[in-house]
C-alpha cells in the first residue's frame, strides 16, 4: 500500500503568479484566523470586519483618516527599506521618527515668528538632520567595528522616546499648558497645509515623491546598483572596489533622515506641537510594511494604505466593544502568512507516493 506524501521541489525561477497571489491569500487567511479568534471571544466576526472596513475605507472621513495614518507608515517604511536594501537592519525607525519630530519642533518653539517660507523648509531640514544623525550614531560603530546595528538601533529607540519625554515634561513644556506634558502649540507658519478639507496634510507629497525617487534609484542608478552589490555580498563589493564604509554611513544617515521626516510631518501636519507618545509604533509597523512590500518603494505606498486602514478600523470597532488590538493582531498574522507563503514562491509542492513515483 502506497502512502502519499507531499514533497517540496525548488522552482527554477520564483513563480510570478505566486508573487501576487500570496499576499492576497495571506490577507484572507489572516482575516479568517482573526475571525476564529473574534468568534471565540463572543463577537460576530463578519460584523466586526464590516465595521472595520466600511469605517476605514467606505466613508470620506474614514478614508482620509486612513491616509493620515498611511503617511508616517509609508515614510518610515521607505526609510527602513533603504537600509534593508543594503542588509543594514535598521529597526530604529521609531526612534529616528521621534528625533526628527524633536529636531523639527525646535525651530517653531525657539523662533515662533519666522515666516512660513523659512519655517517649513527649516523644519524639514532640521527634522531630517536629527533623524539622520541619530541613525548615524549606530552606523559609525557598524562601519568601523562591525557592531551589530540591530541591537544599537533598537536600543536607541528607547533613548529617543525618553529624550522627547524629558523635553516635554521639562524644558519644552508649555508654561500655559496647565502641566500637561506638551510643548507650546506651533504657530500657523509651522503647520503643513491640509488637503482636501481633511486632516490629510502635505506630508502625503513627501511620501509619494520619496517613493518615486527611491524606486528610480533602486532600479536605474549607479548608486542603487552599488547598494545592491554591497547588500548581496560585501566581499564582492570590496573586490569591485566599492567603498563599503562610506555607503554604510550614507545609507544609514538617509534611512534615519527619511524616518525623521515622518516625525516632522506628524508634529507639523497633525499634532501641531511636540508631546508624549507622538507615534503609536509607526516605526515598528514600518518594518512589516517594508518587508511585505519586498522593499519595493511603490508597493510600500499601497501596503501603507492597507495598514493605515487596519489601524483606523481598529479604532472604529472599539465603539462596538472590540479591543483595538484586533488591528495589531491582524497585522501580525498577515506577516506570518506572507512569510509562510514565500515557500510557495520558491518551491513547488508535489504529491508523491512512498516509493517515489509521482502522482501530480
Amino acid at each position: 500500500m502506497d502512502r502519499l506524501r507531499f514533497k517540496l521541489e525548488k522552482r527554477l525561477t520564483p513563480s510570478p503568479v505566486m508573487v501576487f497571489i500570496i499576499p492576497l491569500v495571506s490577507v484572507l487567511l489572516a482575516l479568517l484566523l482573526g475571525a476564529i479568534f473574534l468568534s471565540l471571544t463572543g463577537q460576530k466576526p463578519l460584523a466586526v470586519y464590516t465595521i472595520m472596513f466600511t469605517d476605514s475605507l467606505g466613508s470620506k472621513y474614514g478614508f482620509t483618516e486612513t491616509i493620515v495614518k498611511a503617511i508616517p507608515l509609508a515614510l518610515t517604511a521607505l526609510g527602513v527599506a533603504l537600509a534593508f536594501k543594503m542588509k543594514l537592519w535598521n529597526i530604529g525607525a521609531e526612534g529616528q521618527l521621534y528625533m526628527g519630530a524633536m529636531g523639527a519642533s525646535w525651530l517653531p518653539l525657539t523662533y515662533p515668528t519666522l515666516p512660513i517660507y523659512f519655517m517649513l523648509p527649516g523644519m524639514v531640514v532640521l527634522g531630517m538632520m536629527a533623524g539622520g544623525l541619530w541613525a548615524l550614531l549606530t552606523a559609525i560603530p557598524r562601519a568601523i567595528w562591525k557592531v551589530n546595528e540591530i541591537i544599537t538601533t533598537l536600543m536607541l529607540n528607547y533613548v529617543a522616546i525618553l529624550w522627547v519625554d524629558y523635553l516635554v515634561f521639562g524644558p519644552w513644556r508649555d508654561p500655559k499648558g496647565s502641566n500637561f506634558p506638551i510643548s507650546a502649540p506651533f504657530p500657523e507658519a509651522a503647520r503643513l497645509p491640509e488637503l482636501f478639507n481633511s486632516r490629510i496634510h502635505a506630508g502625503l507629497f513627501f511620501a509619494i515623491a520619496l517613493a518615486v525617487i527611491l524606486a528610480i534609484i533602486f532600479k536605474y542608478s549607479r548608486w542603487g546598483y552599488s547598494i545592491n552589490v554591497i547588500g548581496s555580498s560585501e566581499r564582492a563589493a570590496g573586490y569591485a572596489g566599492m567603498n563599503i564604509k562610506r555607503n554604510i554611513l550614507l545609507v544609514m544617515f538617509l534611512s534615519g533622515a527619511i524616518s525623521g521626516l515622518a516625525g516632522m510631518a506628524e508634529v507639523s501636519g497633525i499634532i501641531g506641537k511636540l508631546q508624549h507618545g507622538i507615534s503609536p509604533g509607526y516605526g515598528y509597523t514600518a518594518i512589516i510594511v517594508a518587508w511585505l512590500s519586498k522593499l519595493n518603494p511603490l508597493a510600500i505606498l499601497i501596503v501603507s494604505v492597507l495598514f493605515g486602514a487596519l489601524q483606523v478600523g481598529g479604532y472604529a470597532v472599539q465603539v462596538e466593544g472590540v479591543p483595538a488590538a484586533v488591528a495589531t493582531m491582524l497585522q501580525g498574522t498577515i506577516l506570518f502568512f506572507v512569510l509562510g507563503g514565500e515557500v510557495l514562491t520558491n518551491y513547488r509542492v508535489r504529491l508523491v507516493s512512498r516509493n517515489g513515483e509521482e502522482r501530480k
Partner: protein
Amino acid sequence: MVEKIEHLEMCGITKRFPGVLSNNKVNIHIKTGEVLAILGENGAGKTTLMNILYGLYQPESGKILLNGKHVSINSPREAIALGIGMVHQHFMLVPTLTVCENVILGLSKSFLVDLKTAAQKIKEITDTYGLAINPDAFVWQLSVGEQQRVEIIKALYRGANLLILDEPTAVLTPQESNELIQLLRNMAAQGNSIILISHKLHEVMALSDRVTVLRDGEVCADVLTRETTQEALAQLMVGRKMAPCKREGTFSPGQTVLELQDVFAHGDKGTEALAGVSLTIREGEILGIAGVSGNGQKELAEVIAGLRHLSQGKITLNGKESTKMSPARIIQQGLGYIPEDRLHVGSIPSFNIWENLILKDHNHPPFAKHTFLKKKAIMAHSASLVATYGVKTPNLETATGRLSGGNIQRVILAREITRSPVALVAAYPTRGLDIGATEYLHSKLLEARKNGIGVLLISEDLEELLSLCDNIAVLYEGSVMKVMPVEATNERILGLLMAGIAEET
C-alpha cells in the same frame, strides 16, 4: 549488525529536474572490495545519481537492488541503515565540537551521551584503517584533509561498508590526495566497496578498479580501469578529442608591469602570512605560483588587489607605486583579478549575468552617465561578451548562481579580460572545473599572454603550471623558495620545494 553489501545495482534510474533530464535510464553496479569511479563532466548527473542512492532524491523510475533484493531508500537514515555511507564535497561538521562529538552527533537515543565508549569505538576504526585522528581534537583545529577523514569515520561508525565519496580530492592538497588514495585502497582491500565521484582523470586511474562514464545524464561507457587510458576516458567524458593547451612562440617579455618588493602581510588569524615576497611580472609573461594552498597564496593575491594591508614592503603596478592605493584605484591602474572564490567574491550568485559583467565598470561610460546606468549599452556589451566567451545561459537575465562553475568562470574571465588589464592575477582559476572548461580557460590565459598582459597564475595543479607558465615561483610559508624558468624545473623539483626542502646545489 547490518547485512554486508556484497553486490549493489541501480537499474534504469531516471531523474528529472525542472528543465533538465539529470539521469536517463542509468545502470551501475558494484561488488564488495571494488572501487568504482563515476566519471563525468560537471552537470553530467553524477551527484544526482549518488544522492538517489543515498536517499536524498527519489528517482522518477528505476530500482535499486541490494544483494539481489529490491530496496527503496527514502532518506539518508534508511541508506545508513542499509550500510551506505556518503562523504559530501562540503563537509557537514560542527567546528566547535570535538571529533568524537561530531561522529556521534544525532546517533544517541538516550538522554546521556556516552563519549567514552564512542571514543573507544572510533579508536578501533582508526586503528583498523590507519586513520590518524585524535578523537578529542576540536574540528576547527584540523586541516581540511583531516576533516575529511572525520567524515569517513562518521560513515564507518554508522556501520557503512559501501562508501560514496563526492569529489573527495577537490579540496585537498596533492599530498593529502595521495594519502587519501592510499587510505581508500586499504579500505577496499579490507572488503569495503567504494564509489568515487570525480572528474579528475589521474585520481580515477590511480584509485579505481572500474570506471562508469556519464555524459549528459546517460552512461556512455563502463570499462575496467586497467584496460583503458587517461586519453580514452577524457574523450569518452567530453565526447570529443582533447587538445591540451601548450604555450607556444618564444618567450619575449616586455616591460615590468607588476613588481613586489619585500612584501610582508598578516593573514586573517593575525599571523604572518607573507614574509618578504619579491616578484616581478613582465608584459607577455605568465608567472606561476606553485605551493600547497595556505602558504600565503590567498594573501598574496589580496595584497596585490589592495584588499589586504601590507605591513611592510612595496608594490608597483604599471609604473606607479600601488602599495597604499584603494582597491578602486588599483582596478583603474590596470589590474585584473580572478579571485579564488568565484561564487562569493568574483561574482554575486543572485545577480543576473549583465549585473555581474558590470561589477567593476558600473561607474564609467559607456555603462553609466551621471547618476544613471545605461541599460542599452550594458545589454549590448553583455550580449557580445556572452557570445564571445561562449557562456551557456538561457539569457542575460539569468541569475549567475544558476550557471555551472565553468560558465560562472567564463563570466568572470570575460569581465576581467575585456577590461584590458596590464596585469592579471588568477587564483586557482580552474579549481573544480571540468576538462572542457579548464581547456577553455587555459587557452584564454595564453591568449592574454600573447596580447602582452602579465599574468600571475596561482595554482596547485603542477601539470597546469608546467604547461602554461614561463617562470614558476614556489611559495612556502609565506616566502618565495625559488623562481625558475619552466624549462629548468619539473614536478619532482617543484614537489620538493613545495614541501619546504631547498635543493642542494
